[in-house]
């Protein structure tokens, strides 16, 4: 039981009414929605961030463990407190703090439920994309802790793709802001790392959510199958045709029967499986898209497929999907929901395996799952009161998990590792991989008092074998090492570590000037020989390349399958994939297609200890362990040397067409706001000013099916005209170069290149006020991504300080991405220090203890 002095202290912090001690409290906070159970010492209900921090400080001082909790709907035991720790329950942090529709953000406290967010946004025509099936009762804090998905994440991505900022109480009680209102804060992707960390790195008390306008139209279809394998094949057929439905959900015959028994929503009882397929977007072309889907399904042996004729019928179809867990709950007292992900093409095999294993272990089961993501949720029915059954059901789930991993999948797609999947972690991670993640954890929580006993299996002492010393230093031209493969790269790193040398991972070198002035001279560790295709799986829309593969070569390879990686970084013609990922580089298409952080499924890299570490995998949903993929993406070579990169590819659009028109910046901003607030789905919305020409050129791009693009072009023209600009002209742009290649090249070739990351609403004001020295080569105002790029011939210290002050005033940040070394020796290119940058250095110290990689380049230079 908890120490009475500490209990008294907790009562003083939050008030005596907000501490729950005693048997009843211990009993009713001993569980979540999983099968795990353990009694906590005491439950504390802080009322705000400050109280949360004070509670954490008190616990930290006493060395008492704690577990964050919201509504306790976790499906992997993540919110059950082990070691009689303190439950910190955030149900009182239940307010929506700020809604900024023009800026497309929502600031909330983390005890707000997902559905409350949706309900607040719906009347305004907006939504928050993650929509876990438990959204009624799942809090944002839980969504963040688990990196939740939901039916609609097929089209829009998971939680991490929609969190812009977090306010976090760290295990030592310090409060930090990770990110903010802008898309790309400088430094490591701390919010990306935090999302999905399952309460082991701290407690998020507030979040800034990215919100989006609701689609103009939606078509919901029910496809009926006599063979579940045909249904699974239809999924692949649809995705590989370049159609991304909003949802693609499957239910098997057991679920259909159970649902029809309880709510009657019109599924045929004799079907082997049904798919609920929903497409949404612009009304124009949506019907054609639905028709293509229908044809594809019929070609795969679909018995029949019909569209919901009205919202009542649509709701009825969804009622069945949403009621599926409930329906099954009526059949047996308990169920275990497994949560594995396989490549979509392996779904037929995975379903057979699930059926076989359930039968083998003697459990009745049903399947209702996110087929489009390959995310299976077999429901195993049993009675938890029977301890023998309980043990066996865990065995069965483990066998199913292992089978899915054998098929190329992973152990958890969205429910988290928690307690239930700890044993499975070794199926996908080596001891070195786990050690790397443990080191991340130690950086945040050296005593492991935050949610102890979750995610990580205990270390295996024998596995931590001493690293063999390399036979000889690799042959290398002066100042450059060229490892032949990952193994040799490991040896290079170990050799460097031993000799106290510094390495700068490098690809083609065209983006190599990033970051602060290095502490020590660096040897360039080049990826040239890690070049080429490792795996291209067009049906799954997954491609794996060596990090040294030139961007252009990778795209050319993918174009053979009419696919591509929809990221257009600056200098794309020259850079490597590794360079793009290491810098998180992307063009203004980021809003629509995503940044590298949004397109990376996994990667491999050589750590500062000279070990090749695996992060993520090849499936679109993956929450196994910490998100090392996002930590490495954008880490600018300071944490490791990238070796392999797994991308989520996209189908090549039929048409890339844009509008352009000249006007002053304010007018461009008005037009941009009108376009962004509409139901159009632009790929980019920018204004560009080049060289001596007066005024700005507004550009709005659309990509996709010809019919949809054409309608958007027409509507976009009208919107721009209504906002006061002349009629814009239309132009087609090449797929790979995009519409900004020349501008980005000019930006990169400027003596000084500055990239300001701002709240979307602050973009227009920023370059408008900025000093524009004569000869300013290029300015790009990216209204959609909240980014302003300034290419300048010169930059004085006071000017730079002025820019820093104005960006920070606007709630953003600025980075000098390119400058002469003389400037860098004098100034921190990331601007004035921010408190959370301490963590960047702690992470660096923990993960690259010898400071082998790019020492000194991080934000917040020491000394």
């Amino acid at each position, binding site marked *: 039981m908890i120490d009475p002095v500490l209990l008294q202290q907790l009562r003083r912090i939050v008030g005596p009414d907000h501490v729950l001690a005693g048997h*009843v409290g211990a009993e*009713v906070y001993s569980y979540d*929605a999983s099968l795990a159970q353990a009694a906590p010492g005491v439950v504390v209900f802080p009322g705000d961030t400050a109280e949360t921090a004070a509670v954490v400080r008190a616990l930290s001082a006493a060395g008492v463990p704690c577990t964050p909790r919201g509504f306790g709907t976790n499906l992997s035991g993540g919110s059950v407190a082990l070691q009689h720790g303190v439950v910190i*329950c955030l*149900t009182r942090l239940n307010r929506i703090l700020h809604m900024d529709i023009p800026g497309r953000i929502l600031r909330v406290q983390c005890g707000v439920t997902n*559905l409350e967010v949706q309900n607040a946004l719906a009347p305004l025509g907006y939504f928050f994309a993650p929509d876990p099936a438990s959204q009624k009762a799942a809090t944002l804090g839980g969504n963040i802790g688990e990196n939740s998905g939901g039916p609609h994440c097929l089209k829009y991505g998971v939680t991490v793709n929609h969190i812009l900022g977090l306010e976090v109480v760290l295990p030592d009680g310090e409060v930090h802001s990770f990110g903010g209102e802008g898309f790309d804060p400088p430094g490591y992707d701390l919010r990306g790392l935090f999302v999905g960390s399952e309460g082991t790195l701290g407690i998020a008390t507030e979040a800034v959510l990215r919100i989006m306008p609701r689609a103009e139209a939606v078509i919901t279809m029910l496809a009926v199958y006599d063979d579940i394998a045909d249904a699974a094949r239809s999924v692949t057929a649809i995705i590989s045709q370049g159609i991304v439905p909003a949802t693609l959900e499957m239910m098997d015959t057991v679920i259909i029967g159970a649902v029809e028994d309880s709510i009657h929503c019109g599924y045929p009882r004799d079907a082997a499986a049904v798919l609920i397929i929903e497409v949404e977007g612009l009304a124009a072309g949506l019907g054609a898209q639905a028709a293509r889907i229908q044809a594809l399904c019929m070609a795969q042996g679909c018995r029949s497929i019909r569209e919901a004729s009205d919202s009542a019928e649509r709701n009825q179809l969804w009622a069945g999907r949403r009621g599926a*867990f409930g329906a099954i709950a009526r059949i047996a*007292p308990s169920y275990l929901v497994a949560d594995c992900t396989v490549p979509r093409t392996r779904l037929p095999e995975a379903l057979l395996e699930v059926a076989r294993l359930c039968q083998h272990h003697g459990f009745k089961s049903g399947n209702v799952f996110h087929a489009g993501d390959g995310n299976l949720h077999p429901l195993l029915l049993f009675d938890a*009161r029977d301890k023998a059954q309980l043990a066996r059901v865990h065995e069965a789930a483990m066998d199913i998990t292992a089978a899915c991993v054998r098929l190329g999948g992973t152990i958890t797609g969205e429910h988290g590792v928690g307690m239930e999947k700890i044993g499975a972690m070794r199926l996908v991670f080596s001891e070195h991989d786990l050690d790397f993640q443990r080191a991340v954890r130690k950086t945040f929580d050296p005593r492991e008092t935050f949610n102890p006993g979750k995610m990580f299996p205990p270390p295996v002492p024998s596995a931590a074998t001493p690293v063999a010393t390399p036979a000889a230093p690799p042959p290398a031209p002066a100042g450059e090492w060229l490892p032949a493969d990952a193994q040799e790269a490991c040896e290079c790193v170990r050799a460097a570590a031993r000799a106290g040398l510094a390495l700068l991972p490098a690809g083609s070198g065209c983006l190599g000037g990033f970051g602060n002035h290095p502490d020590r001279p660096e040897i360039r560790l080049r990826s040239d020989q890690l070049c080429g295709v490792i795996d291209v799986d067009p049906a799954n829309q997954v491609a794996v390349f060596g990090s040294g593969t030139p961007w252009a070569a990778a795209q050319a390879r993918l174009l053979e399958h009419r696919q591509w990686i929809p990221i257009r970084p600056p200098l794309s013609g020259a850079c490597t994939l590794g360079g793009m990922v290491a810098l998180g580089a992307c063009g203004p298409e980021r809003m629509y297609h995503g940044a590298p952080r949004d397109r990376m499924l996994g990667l491999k890299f050589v750590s500062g200890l000279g070990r090749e570490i695996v992060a993520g995998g090849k499936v679109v949903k993956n929450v196994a362990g910490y998100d090392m993929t996002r930590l490495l993406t954008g880490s600018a070579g300071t944490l490791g040397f990238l070796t392999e990169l797994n991308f989520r590819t996209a189908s090549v659009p039929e048409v890339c067409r844009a509008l352009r028109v000249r006007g002053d910046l304010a007018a461009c901003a008005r037009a941009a706001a009108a376009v962004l607030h509409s139901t159009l789905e632009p790929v980019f919305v920018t204004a560009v000013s080049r060289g001596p020409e007066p005024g700005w050129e507004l550009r709005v791009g659309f990509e996709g099916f010809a019919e949809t693009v054409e309608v958007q072009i027409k509507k976009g023209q009208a919107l721009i005209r209504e906002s006061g600009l002349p009629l814009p002209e239309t132009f087609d742009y090449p797929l790979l170069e995009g519409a900004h290649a020349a501008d980005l090249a000019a930006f990169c070739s400027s003596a000084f290149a500055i990239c300001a990351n701002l709240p979307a609403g602050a973009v227009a004001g920023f370059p408008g006020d900025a000093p524009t020295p004569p000869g300013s080569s290029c300015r790009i105002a990216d209204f959609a991504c909240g980014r302003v790029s300034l290419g300048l011939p010169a930059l004085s210290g006071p000017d730079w300080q002025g820019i820093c002050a104005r960006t920070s005033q606007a709630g953003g940040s600025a980075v000098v991405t390119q400058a002469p070394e003389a400037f860098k020796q004098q100034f921190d290119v990331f601007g004035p220090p921010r408190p959370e940058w301490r963590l960047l250095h702690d992470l660096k110290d923990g993960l690259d203890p010898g400071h082998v990689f790019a020492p000194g380049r991080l934000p917040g230079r020491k000394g």
Partner: protein
Amino acid sequence: MAIAEQYDEIARCNRCGFCQVACPVFRATGRETGVARGRIAMLRALVEKRAEWNRELENSLFACLLCGACTANCFPALPTSDLILEARTEYLERVGRNPLLRLLFTRLLPHPERVRLAARAAGLGKRSGATRVAKALKLLRCFGRDLERSEEIVDRFPARAFRDTVKPGSYPGSGESLRIAYFVGCGTDVMCPAAGAASLQLLQLVARRVTVLDNCCCGLPPRAYGERDAAWKLAAKNIALLSSEPFDLIVTDCSSCASFLKKYPALVPPGDPLAPAAAAVAAKVRDLLEVVVPPSAPSLQADEHLIVTYHDPCHAVRGQGLSAQPRNLLRALKNVEYRELPEADWCCGGAGSYALSHYDVSRKILERKMDNLARTGAGVLATSCPACILQLSYGVRLRQLPVRVCHVSELIASRTQAPGLPRAT
């Protein structure tokens, strides 16, 4: 029945947590102790002998509104309210009962005239200001230590109860052939006599004959507290009265009474000879909302334009499944704009005596209701349960909202021409 016998039912809770969304107590407190999942977990711990029957359980068991919203949001549709009732009964047996409440249930409630007398005493006390209600009615103190504050919930007691004005007996109606028994709930009788008068008037329009019953309390308050035996004694008394004449329908304007009367058969102790009579009575019971028809005659010229909204009493919407009927009635009124109340089916926190026994939680629940009410911009809030009317009136008074709270029947009657009939006053 011991709670252990419900083990199979209890084990069906798979702890998904969806009940938290709908539970007004949980939304007010954020506490797992105050939501179905937590209560079921406690029951399970009791059955599995991880917990003991003691006073620590009291809050878990008695802080439930019994509103039933959890069941409506529960995948296996666990009847949590029923399980809680069983547990309360067992708690009283094992841990001890409150003697004052026992007195209230066994000495006061079986006698409607005593209830009216007590209310009159309380009303006198309130009006004179000399004694507070709680003091005039010392019995009520048994509801708990919050009572001193909760006394203000009741603004004033009507000078005369409904059945002081309209004596029990038979009244003619203008309807076709129906013989209706009007079951007068305690709340309508002593707190909302105007609603009673309006209801009688509406019943007279649909029935040939309306009998105002001299019934006693339906038994819901003791049943809700866990005093099953006391509840059955009241029910038995009413069953005898209701079986004494060949009524076609038994109607009440209190949705809580209606819901409970319909459940009389489940209350009959095993082997009791009254079982068939209980079933016969229950089959005839209707909520007033089910029998009133929208006024066919054009309403009076002078009817003012009203914006009206409706609060679903738990015992109407979940207790009896009545949701469309009241809305249709209100929408049918001329010169009335009906606006839906957000979260209309959320409990108002009144829940019988809950507002007295759990003032703070009840107050928070009420505040949520008032936030929603203010959003509608309605001038009239209609409902169909006197306990709700009291609680909602209290909320409106606290917020100083320009809203009249009344029974659906009052609103309809005020807009219905009923010439030639003796108008109840």
